[in-house]
């Protein structure tokens, strides 16, 4: 087998092999486990960067393993896949460092890291999946691999949350399977093609609409579209590294990524517009955006507020997909990466606050900026990014979404974005204000022994890194290496007709 066919497999192997080994290592071989893990992550990151360069230059990486007649296990890298793969590989490394710092007091490390690795493998497989079958396969393995992470603490609430999660995810998976099987029975094996693989075929439109609805519903569970979002706030019971990974990288982005794939690379944007499915999709997205933010306003638990914020922000991506235009496509796709970076920063900081000071509620956060300045600086940067203030990353995605909405003549989507911005300000800014400008009601309970930094350095460094990235991705969005430029490349390849785009 040639190198270009081997590399996707190697990317998957680099995360699955150490995970399996870790299962056998036992609980007490902590250092070997950590070195194995970090080594594998570096290897994976190198492979991903190598592939990135290749894809930019127009090379292709494809692994095809025929399983049944008409059903291939297909891994294929294209520009869109690389965006998601880069996000997951990069954030996996950062989250591992954070987890090493966080997990010291929790039991069952072997199990944790093992399934952590399996989740990331599934995410990578999802990113690289070249056809609907492979995508579905990894979609389900992702559910299975993340369940043990959600119920890690094994308390009653954790198990209840895990149950809810499984119900939602399995039901969603069933809907997706139905859609995939139906489509394949109509047209045969469906591979992801830039521009849409169903283009040009004469098919029964009502069947296509039904299939689209089934797939979006199935993917919508993981994307937390209203009203399928109920599992997400409950899954907050998981340890912070899991919430960070789940809410920034693995599960929720998998759903959003799936929707992007289905619209652009299965149906194609033109066919979607013909079928008239884009307007209902944008309605659902808009409803979710507003609903998530409204629910977030009333939460006092910090992680639950962040969860509802995730519900809301993910639908920015779906809204970008649903609006026809280059700018909104760019905005939606780049928000995959930007939202991931910003949300993971917020969850890292939430975890630091819980771990160091036992703070889980926003009402307890008065004056915490004085005690933990670096953490709250990272938090504030991420908050400004989520609100969409320049020069942070969130502004770039919001700007492009707005441009696309105006170009497409959908001014009401701009109103949705503005309302969402205002709501974001309403539930994020009071936290920042309380942390920096209010005095603490009582001295903080220190759960960790005092050290040189305000908290464990392994916890702080990842949060500061992702906060810095939030700033850099926005400030240098015009440079050739920014996620924005990569998203513009993706949009160029995915959209067959390209109206004028503004800017650099």
């Amino acid at each position, binding site marked *: *087998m040639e190198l270009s066919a081997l590399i996707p497999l190697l990317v998957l192997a680099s995360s699955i092999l150490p995970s399996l080994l870790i299962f056998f290592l036992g609980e007490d071989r902590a250092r070997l486990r950590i070195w194995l893990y970090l080594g594998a992550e570096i290897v994976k990151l190198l492979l991903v960067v190598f592939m990135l360069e290749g894809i930019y230059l127009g090379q292709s990486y494809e692994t095809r*393993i025929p399983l049944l007649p008409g059903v291939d296990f297909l891994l294929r890298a294209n520009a869109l896949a690389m965006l998601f793969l880069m996000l997951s590989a990069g954030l996996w490394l950062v989250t591992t460092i954070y987890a090493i710092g966080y997990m010291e007091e929790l039991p069952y490390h072997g*199990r944790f890291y093992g399934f952590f690795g399996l989740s990331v493998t599934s995410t990578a497989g999802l990113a690289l999946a070249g056809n609907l079958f492979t995508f579905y396969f990894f979609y389900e393995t992702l559910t299975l691999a993340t369940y043990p992470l959600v119920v890690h603490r094994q308390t009653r609430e954790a198990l209840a949350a895990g149950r809810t999660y499984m119900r939602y995810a399995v039901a969603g998976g069933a809907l997706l399977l139905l859609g995939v099987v139906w489509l394949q029975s109509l047209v045969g094996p469906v591979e992801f093609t830039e521009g849409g693989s169903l283009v040009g075929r004469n098919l029964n439109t009502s069947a296509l609409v039904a299939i689209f609805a089934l797939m979006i519903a199935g993917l919508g569970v993981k994307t937390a579209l209203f009203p399928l979002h109920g599992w997400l706030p409950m899954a907050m019971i998981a340890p912070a590294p899991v919430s960070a990974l789940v809410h920034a990288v693995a599960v929720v982005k998998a759903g959003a990524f799936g929707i992007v794939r289905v619209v652009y690379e299965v149906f194609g944007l033109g066919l979607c517009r013909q079928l008239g499915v884009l307007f209902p999709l944008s309605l659902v997205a808009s409803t979710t955006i507003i609903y998530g933010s409204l629910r977030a306003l009333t939460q006092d638990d910090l992680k639950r507020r962040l969860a509802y914020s995730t519900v809301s922000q993910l639908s920015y991506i779906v809204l970008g997909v649903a609006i026809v235009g280059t700018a909104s496509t760019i905005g939606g796709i780049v928000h995959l990466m930007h939202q991931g970076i910003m949300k993971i920063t917020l969850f890292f900081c939430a975890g630091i606050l819980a771990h160091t000071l036992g703070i889980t509620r926003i009402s307890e956060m008065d004056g915490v900026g004085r005690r933990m300045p670096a953490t709250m600086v990272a938090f504030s940067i991420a908050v400004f990014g989520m609100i969409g203030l*320049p020069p942070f990353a969130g502004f770039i995605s919001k700007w492009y979404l707005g441009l696309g909405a105006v170009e497409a003549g959908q001014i009401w989507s701009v109103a949705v974005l503005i309302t969402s911005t205002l709501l974001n300000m309403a539930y994020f*800014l009071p936290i920042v204000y309380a942390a920096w400008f209010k005095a603490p009601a009582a001295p903080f309970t220190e759960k960790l022994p005092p050290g040189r930094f305000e908290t464990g350095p392994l916890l702080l460094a990842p949060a500061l890194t992702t906060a810095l990235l939030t700033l850099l991705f926005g400030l*240098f969005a015009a440079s050739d290496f920014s996620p924005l430029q990569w998203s513009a490349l993706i949009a160029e390849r995915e959209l067959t007709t390209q109206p004028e785009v*503004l*800017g650099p």
Partner: protein
Amino acid sequence: MTITLTHPALWLSAVGLPLLLALLLPVARLRSPAQLLMPWAAAPALGLALLVSQEVVVELPLLLGMRLGLIPLTRVFLLFTALLWIIAGVYAQSYLAGDAAFRRFCGFYLLTMSGNLGLILARDLVSFYFFFTLMGLAAYGLVIHAGTAAVQRAGRIYLILVILGEAFLLPAMLLTAVAAGTYNLEAVPAAVAGSAQRPLIMGLLLIGFGIKAGALFLHVWLPLAHPAAPTPASAILSGTMIKAGLLGWLLFLPLGEPALPAWGTFCMVAGITAAFYGVVVGLTQSHPKSILAYSSVSQMGLMTVALGVALAVPTARTLALSAIMVYATHHALAKGALFLGVGVADHVSTSRQRLLVGVGLLLAALALAGAPLSSGAVAKTFLKDATYAVSDPWSARLSLLLQLAAVATTLLMGRFLLAVWPDTRKPDHHLPAGLWLPWSVAVALVAGWVFLLPEELATVAVKTLAFSSFWPVAVGALLVGGGWWLYRRPGMRFRPAIPEGDVLLLLLWLLNVLQRVRRAGVVPAWNALTRQADRSAGHWQRQTDVVTTLIRLEGRLNTWVVAGTIFMVLLTLALLLVVLV
């Protein structure tokens, strides 16, 4: 060695130096130097304003393609803005010398400075929006510096209105960007003029920038925030920051082609109303800074009139712009001197100081009122010339109204002087050089800047010796004298007092009523709905207990970790086999 003025680093330093200093503040060892250098962070910008005489644009690889540069209009704005930031900064170093939170003040001062300078230097849409937002949000920290409950309330209202302004500006920016097809600011007015959604865009721009500029009914934050902030910050807020809103109007609105008489008339009417409204409410205030705040509302109204002229009469565009440039410069320097004078007057300790400070304040107040030979008179002359371009009979009416507005301004300035005049000797007060030195510079600038300028302005200055500049001030002074005498008579009970914020209070009363309605009806309904949603989720869980039992059964396989691992190993082996075969 020639220093090329087009080097990008120079322009980046004009906006970046304040940010850099702000970043140094948290570092313990660099704190004092940073605080010392704080006012001078505006020096590169001042240098650019003084040295750059042609239109320049440099490109920087930031944001979505940042372009910084100067055109004649923005050069004037940059000049008085940078000057005032430096003067107020030096003043602040003495004024807040013993303040425990001075470092925090410096941080917000520098951030706001960067935003203010940046939006003037910006030559593209996105950068303008970025710096405008930065300035607006960072100024919140300046407003709430004192930390008392009243100040926090003022800050909250300020923030709400800034955010509201954002809500109007962002769609305006997006619509403009799409209409223009580019981010360059040069292309914007024509794009707005030619757009199919011109009314919408213009409405959004007028309101969005109007909030910042203190336009009528959007001004409610101004009389709260300007007095609440520490005196040097008030000088900046009134002197340069509200001009940012004005600059936004000037850069984005289609002045010139085509004629927009409806919008123009609207602006003129709104402006002249604001001119008188500000005075009427300002007369009822007792705190000198509140009086000055309402004076700002009034003066911005006059500049809005000039804007209206430019909108309505394309041929008068150059005239109107000149009028606005002169008026903005005059107002910035005069208002800055007046605000700083309030702080100086507070610290006066000897009667000699009292005399000198009084004279200084009188000079600045006369300038604002438009006494002959002052910058105010020159500005008002330019304004009058611009209004002559409007068609009759409006032209005559406007002239009269402007004269009456001058009377009104004099009245207000008289009220201000009466409020701020250092009353009794306070020997324990101390007037440090750090306060009176920058203030004197400001007063000197106010009194003398018209004479430093090219011949056209000097000849206009001489023109102001005419009677038409003299009588409004004289009438106003007489009225002030009469009012003061009446006021001091025993038995005078008519002392109206309108709390700062005027219209806002009406709005708050309305909101209170709505709040009661909401509490009685809407909120319980919403809570019940969400509780029902949560309950249903739980209900569904209980109903599917068969699944629960199955899952629990599965969970009891405590060798399931191994089972799962074996499965994955087998799968991997199978895949490897398929690959290699």
